[in-house]
Structures are given as structure tokens and as C-alpha cells.
């Protein structure tokens, strides 16, 4: 079944590749991946656990801002942007070119919601 889920993610990545999307990762709060797809343009360290795990901590801190639960975060660097969806107990991370249409990529949350909900039971909350 992972091949189906992975190939679905791969097809989503292919659909948005022309829009600048380079990688999608679905991980637990510690950055351990459940599903991960990427193209060759991603820096090697971008999908490592010690980098992905920081997102879980950032989301937890953002939850304590006093403005409700954190839903998403966008980090825009010089060449890359990272979009993070908080789908507790999972995290969905998108890595894209900084020139990619952020608004378009934010819509990916709806597209991935069903699959992420389905596999979230695998992770302890």
C-alpha cells in the first residue's frame, strides 16, 4: 500500500513541479517520515530528520503564542520557501522555489488532507 500512497504523492509532486514544488514530506512531530517524495533539486540535508524535527518544535511553540492552534507556517529564504501544515499528530512539509506561487501551494493542504487523515492513526498523538 505504501507504493500507492507514495505514487499518489509523487503524482501530486509532478502536478506542481512546474509551479516550483520540489518536495513533499509527511512526518511525525519528531521528523521521522511516513511519506516523502522529492526531486533532485533538493539540498541533501533538507529532508533529514534533524531539520524536519525542528518544524514540530516550532509548531508547538507557535501554539503557545496565545492566538490559537498553529495551522500553517511559511518560511521564505533567498532561493527556497518551506510551507508547513500542522496536521496533528502529523506534519506536512512542502519545499518549493521561493518564486513559486505560495497561494497555490497553500491549496495543497486540501488535496492532501484526506490521505494525511487516513495515515495519522499510525502515529501516537
Amino acid at each position, binding site marked *: *500500500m505504501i507504493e500507492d*500512497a507514495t505514487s*499518489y504523492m509523487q503524482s501530486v509532486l509532478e502536478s506542481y513541479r512546474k509551479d516550483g514544488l520540489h518536495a513533499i514530506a509527511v512526518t511525525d512531530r519528531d521528523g521521522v517520515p511516513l511519506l516523502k517524495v522529492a526531486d533532485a533539486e533538493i539540498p541533501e540535508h533538507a529532508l533529514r530528520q534533524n531539520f524536519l524535527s525542528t518544524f514540530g518544535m516550532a509548531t508547538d511553540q507557535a501554539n503557545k503564542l496565545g492566538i490559537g492552534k498553529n495551522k500553517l507556517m511559511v518560511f521564505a529564504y533567498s532561493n527556497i520557501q518551506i510551507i508547513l501544515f500542522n496536521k496533528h499528530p502529523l506534519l506536512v512539509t512542502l519545499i518549493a522555489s521561493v518564486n513559486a506561487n505560495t497561494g497555490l501551494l497553500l491549496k495543497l493542504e486540501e488535496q492532501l488532507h484526506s490521505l494525511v487523515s487516513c495515515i495519522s492513526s499510525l*502515529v501516537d498523538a
Partner: protein
Amino acid sequence: MGCCCSTEDSSSLQDEPNAHTRLLQDPVSNSYQTGLNNSANEYGNSYGNSVAQKTDDQSAQYKVLQQIANKVIDVGALDCQTLEEHEYAERARVYAQSINKIHIPQSILRKKKPFLLMDVSNAERILSAPPISQADYNLMTAATENLSSAYHTIQVTHTKDLVVSLGKG
């Protein structure tokens, strides 16, 4: 420092608390066990008819500590949370195996191709209707141009100088 957990660890009384001192250790395990120990030491023999009361007090204390712990923001932990390699590999292996077994409905995995007119019953009638009026088209164009120019003119209104030049002498 006088916080409710300062008696938990005797060494914390001796050492000066600093920016890295954790005020709350692990509220899930430490406080409950320490609470039990403290109450036994404080009260000596625990007599039967107050055990239930102590349990209520301890659970209330535990709840309060849990609430506080949830609100504590451990700024030091943000950049140093790394799993052991073997634990990472083990977890990844478990996830991979579990995803193999979990049933994901085909309705989710099937890539949906968008059909633009799929909910329109009489497509020919709609498509052969006259297009929008020229006035509407002009309205749309003007509104879009106005929005675009408004967007490009978002800027700070300069009223006073921000920098004070300190005169010499």
C-alpha cells in the same frame, strides 16, 4: 526560587538557577512520584481515611503542573531535538510496515481529473448563451487595474524625519 517544584531536586536548592535551569522537570512522572514521597515524609504515617484526600490533592496538583507545563515554552529545546539514529531507523521501519498494512481507500488515491462542466446538465444551452456585456467587461478591467495600482502604491506616508541628527557642540 520558590516555585512549587523547587523542593523536588535537592541539588536545585544548592545551585543558583540560571537561564538553562529547568524549573519543571517532567511533570508527568516526577511530580506525581515526588508528591507521594513528600506527603509520606511530611505526614509521617499515612492514615487510611485521609489517603483519598491526599490522592485528590495530588491529582489536582498534577493537573495544575500539567497545565503549567503545557504553557511553558522551552526555548532551549527548539534547536537540539534529535532522535538517536537507531530509534529513528526503527520508527521509520515501523511506519513503512504500518503503511503497507493500512487500508487507504481508492477514492483518496485516485487522481481526480477536473471536469469543468460536470455539474451542468445542459451544457449546450449555457455555452451558446451570449457572453457578458461590454459594460461588465469594462467594469472588471477597470476594477482590476485600480486594484493593481492600489497594491503597488502601498507605502509608508512620510510625515517626519525618523533619524535625529545630533548637532556637534
